[in-house]
């Protein structure tokens, strides 16, 4: 395996959890609710998913548990933001705090174990292609699914009646109402789906990427995903670009460190957040025609 292949493999690995949370939150944001809670959803998904995988040795059960747990955090976010009219950014932030506590509590017995079941499932013939084969076609099921996810989200959001309904809630809920649909239910569904997808991203991270559980292992990736939605201008297909750019940056830094280039480890760790902030700054200087109306209200003020 040459070096480019190695870098690309770690790009995909680092980008996949982000891709899940990013696509999820984008669906929620199109319905007008920002789920900073995807951070919390990823955390519970990673913890519970890993716990279930370790105890039962079944990845299917692990993914189901992670979907349920992530969705539950999404439900809390939906309840606080939609029904209790809490500031949706603040509620997402405090849910991170809650899930940190819960996962530290329930994950304490999982700290010293690892789950090393081989999960990769190379596709016949396709995985033989040089470079692309090992990068794209020798992955685990969750990663394969993530390849399809933004495209599926794009199709549903832009080509189906259901997607149009979701987007209409984020733009003009009163119109949705007039057409006889309940904006509240649609928002709930969108935010819960955001949580479920983030939960899947979390379990991918703990079971496939790190193959272990450690406290607060998501470490802001959910927040980054939430921020990258803005970078994608709320367009699902751009999620590939945003998530893998992020993954590539991480992969390159790790590669440089392995090569002995003297960069402080902390610069490496800081860079994803710095890059996200810089990307947001750059995208903000352009006009935001594609921003859902309901989101505009909370980020640009009166």
């Amino acid at each position, binding site marked *: 395996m040459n070096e480019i292949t190695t870098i690309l493999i770690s790009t995909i690995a680092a980008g996949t959890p982000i891709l899940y949370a990013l696509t999820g939150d984008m669906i929620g944001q199109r319905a007008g609710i920002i789920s900073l809670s995807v951070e919390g959803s990823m955390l519970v998904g990673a913890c519970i998913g890993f716990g279930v995988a370790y105890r039962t040795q079944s990845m299917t059960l692990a993914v189901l548990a992670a979907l349920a747990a992530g969705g539950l955090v999404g439900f809390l976010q939906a309840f606080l933001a939609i029904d209790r*009219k809490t500031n949706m950014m603040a509620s997402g932030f405090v849910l991170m705090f809650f899930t940190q506590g819960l996962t530290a509590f329930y994950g304490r017995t999982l700290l010293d174990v690892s789950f090393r079941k081989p999960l990769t499932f190379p596709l016949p013939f396709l995985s033989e292609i040089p470079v692309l084969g090992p990068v794209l076609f020798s992955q685990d099921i969750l990663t394969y699914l993530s390849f399809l996810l933004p495209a599926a989200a794009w199709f549903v959001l832009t080509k189906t009646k259901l997607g149009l309904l979701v987007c209409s809630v984020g733009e003009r809920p009163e119109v949705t109402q007039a057409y006889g649909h309940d904006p509240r239910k649609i928002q709930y569904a969108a935010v819960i789906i955001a949580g479920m997808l983030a939960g899947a991203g979390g379990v991918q991270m703990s079971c496939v990427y790190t193959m272990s559980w450690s406290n607060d292992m998501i470490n802001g990736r959910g927040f980054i995903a939430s921020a990258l939605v803005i970078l994608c201008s709320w367009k699902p297909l751009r999620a590939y670009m945003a998530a893998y750019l992020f993954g590539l940056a991480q992969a390159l830094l790790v590669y440089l460190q392995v090569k002995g280039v003297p960069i402080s480890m902390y610069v490496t760790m800081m860079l994803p957040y710095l890059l996200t902030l810089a990307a*947001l700054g750059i995208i903000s200087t352009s006009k935001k025609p594609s921003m859902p109306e309901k989101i505009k209200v909370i980020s640009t003020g009166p």
Partner: protein
Amino acid sequence: MRRSKPLDCGGLTRLLEHPAAHVLACTLIPVAVFGILLFTEGKSVMETYRVILNAVFGTRYGFGEVIVRTTYLIFTSLAAILPYRVGLANAGGEGQMAIGALFTAIAGGTLLRHLIGPLGIPALLVCGMAGGMIWAGIAIFCRMKLGMNETLTTILMNYIATYFISMLLFGVLRDPAGWNYPQTVEIAPQLRLRTYFGTRINAGILLAVLTAAGVWYLLRKTKAGFTIRAIGGNPRAALYSGIQVGKVQAMAFLAAGASAGLAGAILIMGTEGRMRVDAGATMGFMGFLAAGIVKNDPILAIFSSFLIAALSVAGNAMEINTGLPAASIQILMMLVLLTIMATGGRKNRE
């Protein structure tokens, strides 16, 4: 616009709107739920709560620690309250406090090392405030000039602050005489705050309570406070009535940074003496929580800060005595907040 009815528990919700019932519910429900969690994990519920109470009220040192942490939390909760009052959400108290602490430690160990106490102590407090203001200033600049959501920016800046400080402590700022520990040189002894009662309690708590009272006075009794309340009530109406909303928001945000920075300054001058990795960690997050629990009231925040500080000290004791991770106590803190948010009547902000 007609919408379907929010989740409503009918009579129960109405009963909970009575203030006394509400306070009772917000105490009992979290304690009961956390107790069930402990029970299902095979931990003795009574023993754990005994450990918690004993850690907080059982020893002089423990109670002193609670007061010390209350000091930081009052400042960091004010850092959440001020922006909230002008329609912003500052989730960056953690980073602002850390940078404030860093500035204080650097200044106290180098530039201001030879100043006498009466000059140096106020100067160091100003350094801490400046550090917090710079960190908050970046976020509010991004909001005002680039239209970037301040909550997201401040959250990202928390992570940046943590790694930035680690980078410095493992690099240029590492104390050459510190046995290779990642920490700065100690600040000069005359710049430390005196501690009292054989604990680590220092004058910071007085400053914190006075600041909270000052913020209350500002909001309730002054013209500036009236302006702030107008913006918090309806920013668009305030804008149309000629109030410079952006300017007031920026000032409130900078003041919030200064408040969190003060927490950092007192952390260094009162307790730590030097900057370490993880010094004061989670105090910024918990301040945000303390503010949320009392719906951003500066006077009540003194009490919620005390409550959260007590729980945080209890968390450490729990880790030592029952083997549960200290972070578990965050569940209890959050249950209090969630109960308040979920049962808080119709008074939440639209």
